[in-house]
């Protein structure tokens, strides 16, 4: 296997890397105009939002072994929560996104309560089924535009100190949330709860026999992930200023899964790396050719055969493994 040469040679750099990345991301909007990269502020913002969703999926999949193929459903629930609240006259971003978080979590609680009784491929498929139901529900929901989607053209207010209409402010808010979510999940991964979740992934029967309330533990993780995905959906709604059922289609769930596996399952940096690489490539390839799908396909095959643990594995120190492919 490829040796993480960089990491072993510069362990200190690796430890400081997260802070460096965070700092770079934070000053990026200030530097962007001078570098002529204004457009990329919005792009990075999207990457961050998708990374939030992917991080939550990585949490339940990589650490909890729950391969959910309906994660886009929760993103959609979050986005439509924002739509519904805006339609009902809410103008505060915090309320709207808070609502997205809550309803994402509620949806996950309901779906999880049913789905988590199944295992393996059955779990994959039942989560997919629920997400498809949500998709068709949204398609036929006339009030919120159905298949035509719903535009959110007035920016949400972020309170007296923050100018919600300013794209850079929104960027920093997203960055802060992303960093928070990321830190939170990394933290949780090393807590009692995180270890319990990994135990369930590795040997569920044994965990039951050890006295763990396995179902409740899994459900808690599922709900947390659903809530965070809902939050990401809310942010995405604001970012796109537009919501349509397409964002819940099963292919979106599949893409999210692909990005997470590409980045590295159950690895701290897996989700953001996978998302950043995938979206960047998509963006770049589209500009140059009509046939922009196949290089991505080739990339996936390369990863499967040459970096089966994902990209993060190439960067991480060997001993720092937090759990392998489920």
């Amino acid at each position: 296997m490829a040796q993480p040469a960089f990491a072993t040679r510069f362990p200190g750099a690796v430890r400081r890397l997260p802070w460096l990345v965070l700092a770079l991301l934070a000053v990026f909007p200030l530097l962007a105009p001078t570098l002529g990269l204004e457009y990329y502020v919005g792009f990075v913002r999207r990457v961050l939002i998708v990374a939030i969703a992917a991080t939550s999926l990585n949490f339940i999949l990589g650490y909890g072994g729950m391969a959910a193929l309906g994660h886009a459903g929760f993103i959609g629930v979050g986005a439509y929560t924002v739509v519904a609240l805006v339609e009902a006259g809410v103008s505060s971003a915090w309320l709207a996104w808070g609502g997205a978080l809550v309803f994402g979590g509620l949806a996950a609680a309901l779906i999880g309560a049913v789905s988590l009784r199944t295992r393996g491929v059955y779990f994959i498929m039942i989560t997919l089924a629920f997400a498809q139901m949500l998709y068709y529900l949204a398609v036929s929901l006339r009030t919120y535009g159905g298949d035509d989607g719903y535009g959110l053209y007035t920016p949400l207010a972020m309170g007296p100190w923050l100018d919600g209409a300013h794209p850079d402010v929104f960027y920093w808010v997203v960055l802060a949330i992303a960093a928070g979510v990321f830190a939170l999940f990394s933290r949780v991964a090393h807590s009692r709860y995180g270890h319990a979740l990994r135990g369930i992934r590795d040997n569920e029967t044994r965990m039951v026999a050890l006295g763990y309330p396995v179902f409740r533990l899994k459900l808690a993780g599922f709900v947390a992930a659903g809530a965070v995905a809902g939050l990401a959906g809310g942010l995405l709604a604001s970012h796109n200023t537009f919501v349509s059922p397409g964002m819940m289609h099963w292919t979106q769930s599949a893409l999210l899964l692909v990005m997470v596996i590409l980045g590295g399952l159950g690895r701290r940096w897996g989700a953001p790396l996978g998302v950043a690489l995938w979206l960047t490539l998509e963006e770049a390839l589209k500009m140059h050719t009509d046939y922009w799908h196949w290089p991505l396909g080739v990339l996936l095959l390369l990863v499967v055969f040459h970096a089966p643990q994902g990209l993060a594995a190439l960067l991480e120190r060997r001993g720092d493994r937090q759990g392998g492919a489920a």
Partner: protein
Amino acid sequence: ADIKVGIALDISGPFAALGAEARDGFELAIEKLGGKLGGQPAEFLRTDFGGNPEQANQLVARYLQRDKIDFFTGPIGSNAALAVGPALFAAKVPYLSANPGPSAYAGEKCSPYFFAQYQNDTYDEAAGKVANEKGYKNVVLIAPNYPAGKDHLNGFKRLYKGAVKDEIYTKLGQIDYAAEIAQIRAAKPDAVFFFLPGAMGINFVKQFVGGGLKDIPLIAPGFSADEDVIQAVGEPMIGVLNTAHWTHDLQNPANAEFVSAFRKKYDGRYPSVYAAMAYDTLMAMDAAVRDVGGKVADREAVLKALKSPSFSSVRGEFKYGVNNFPVQNYYLREVGKDADGRITNKLVGTTLEQHQDAYVGACKM
């Protein structure tokens, strides 16, 4: 500097077939214009929306912030049009739609920056009138179960005077229509009006004819019976009545030139309405740039020039209503065979003359 045009293509995803038609129209126009607009050097930036309205916004942001485009055109889907409109309007970039004319932009949310080719419901209104003229007393309507499907059926009912026996809404992307066809057989209508875009229409017509209902006439808005569908369905399409604001055998010099150039470039294939609209859109831009003498930065002037078009459109005479949606003719077409035995649409007659959409009243502009 060059004049920059952002062209959003939909060459992958659900609208890929239509998107490819539009792309061919654009390419032909760019070739004809020698890569210039109004004699000025121009840059045509193409990108693939993939039929995804969420990503559409991202790509338009790139056009606006990085490329600083002067014109926008392209996407096939109404949802994409609705998604990207506000950003374009705010940036004062004229958006010449190469296909969708959503009712929102025709009415309440109309904008001086948006120019349509038709309003989504007008095809159906024309089809409703056709049903009247043919003397159909009872029709069954069928469309996918989403708001646009309902809009299209409502458009049909707006001018149709007979009775509606049944309104069937099907699942988006449905493959099997046996149950619906049995319902139609049981209802014994005089005709069936269907709005089923893309693959859904192809499946439906094939199965409809295979199910032995060939004798019940089919009426459709032009989208459901254009070249893409006709070429995929073949024989069973023959006799399908459909309405559109353009057809390839429409007699006018601009159209004759377009159609023959198109067929020459794309090995004998007839252009579809999507290709025609894409072509026309660039012609409109070309004329407007010429009218303002290349000073595209003066957006007021550009809008004024666009509003009173000085080019000969492939669809013949038309003018814009207050909402920038055209007032134009709508034609009845029937699928048949041309002189070479190729199955294609043939012009039957004019159904609506200088017709305006139903939403213009709501536009305060």
